[in-house]
């Protein structure tokens, strides 16, 4: 059974992401992938949709969960002509990994988050290629592993931009009340809360 409380707690309560923003950024990322990229760079192209999806999985887990990941994966499968379910499976697993890392990532800046997420992005690409091998697709191009690293790098500007849009800052970290009694009170002066936009 799920132990998530009914009402969002902590940071999620302070900076709720609007559904419109989530949908808008995901649509933009999806459209970016549909641009006519030249042939030489397709293996180096970051997975825009996955990067934005994982951002929202971390910052708005109630909205962007496994279901959304699977839906976006199916959309990617249909557009790219891959096996139906191929992207869906890897996206769902990546979203699960991000959701399980979420509590930990709240303590890190964007760079630290990117380092945590890099194995997920790389693993997603590796799993994608291995699944292709398992399903006897002809000829694997291992250069596409570079796309996993590229996605991790791409995640940094995306996260910065979306942090700006949602008003989420790492200074809004809430100290657990009992572990460090001397910790500064939440919202102390000198740390500009930006709270709601």
């Amino acid at each position: 059974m799920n132990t998530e409380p009914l009402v969002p707690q902590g940071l999620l309560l302070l900076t709720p992401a609007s559904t419109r923003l989530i949908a808008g950024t995901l649509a933009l990322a999806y459209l970016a992938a549909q641009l006519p990229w030249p042939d030489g760079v397709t293996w180096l192209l970051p997975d825009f949709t996955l990067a934005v999806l994982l951002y929202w999985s971390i910052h708005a887990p109630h909205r962007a969960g496994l279901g959304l990941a699977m839906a976006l994966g199916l959309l990617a499968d249909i557009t790219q002509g891959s096996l139906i379910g191929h992207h869906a499976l890897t996206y769902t697993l990546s979203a699960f990994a991000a959701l399980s890392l979420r509590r930990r990532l709240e303590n890190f800046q964007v760079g630290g988050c990117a380092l945590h997420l890099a194995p997920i992005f790389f693993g997603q690409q590796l799993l994608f290629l291995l699944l292709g091998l398992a399903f006897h697709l002809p000829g694997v191009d291992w250069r596409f592993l570079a796309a996993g690293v590229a996605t991790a790098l791409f995640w940094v500007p995306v996260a910065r931009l979306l942090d700006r849009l949602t008003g989420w800052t790492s200074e809004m970290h809430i100290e657990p009340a009992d572990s460090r009694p001397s910790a500064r009170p939440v919202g102390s002066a000198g740390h500009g809360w930006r709270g709601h936009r």
Partner: protein
Amino acid sequence: MAHAPMFARTMGLPARLALYCLASLALMVVDSRYAAMATVKNTAAELVNPIQDILARPFGYLGKAGDFFIVHGQVLGENRRLILASQVFASRLQGYEALKLENARLRALLDLRPPSGVETRAAEIVRILPDPFNRRVIVDKGATDGVTAGRPVVDAAGLVGQVTQVYSTSSQVSLLTAKEQAAPVQNQRNGLRLIVSGTGSNDQLEVRYLDMHADLKPGDILVTSGIDGVYPLGIPVARVVRVEPPRQTPFARVICQPIGAIGQHRHVLILNRPEAAK
């Protein structure tokens, strides 16, 4: 006891993950084993293609705007070159017409079926699919233009690939260099029949499982043999680069270079079989 629920009674995260993973895997198996998904895929592609067209349009305009500012001298030079080339072709065609007549007469004498004519249709490559497993491009001619699946695709120099999927206004071309693509060819020098396959790289083709005594030398030109009923006779396919002698296997391997400029052009020709010839 009528308590308000403290916690949401939903399925746990791992349970949902397992469910979604199973569903995805099932879909993959169905898609790879059965043709059931083909209609779903086709419908979806019809829906998505217009979006991709709209997105590609500004880039097309940019390219055209770039063409507008081309230098006058460049146009003149190109024009001069093209006039020369067309004269060369015209002189070659004179001989060709005579040969064609003679060939028809000889075929009639031998009571052979006339070879089916081929009509060409120019198409523009609009998109390259970012797929690590396959080398495919999307061209802007589809079922409404009379394109059917299986038709060969060529450029000015040689074979490029084959139409593998047709949508209403666009179609998917699998490039000759894709690993699962193969073309039956003939050595132009001595008529030796072979099968050339892709290697997954843009500038390399190979002949697998070649007899170690086969007469094949670097520089030989391989043209389609026309015996598979897909590729018409005589399209240049590849030039032999080197012959690797057998190592630990009873077969030699030949590395060739494709003659068609695969991955370098924007326009290709789709060879359509005219309806009357069927």
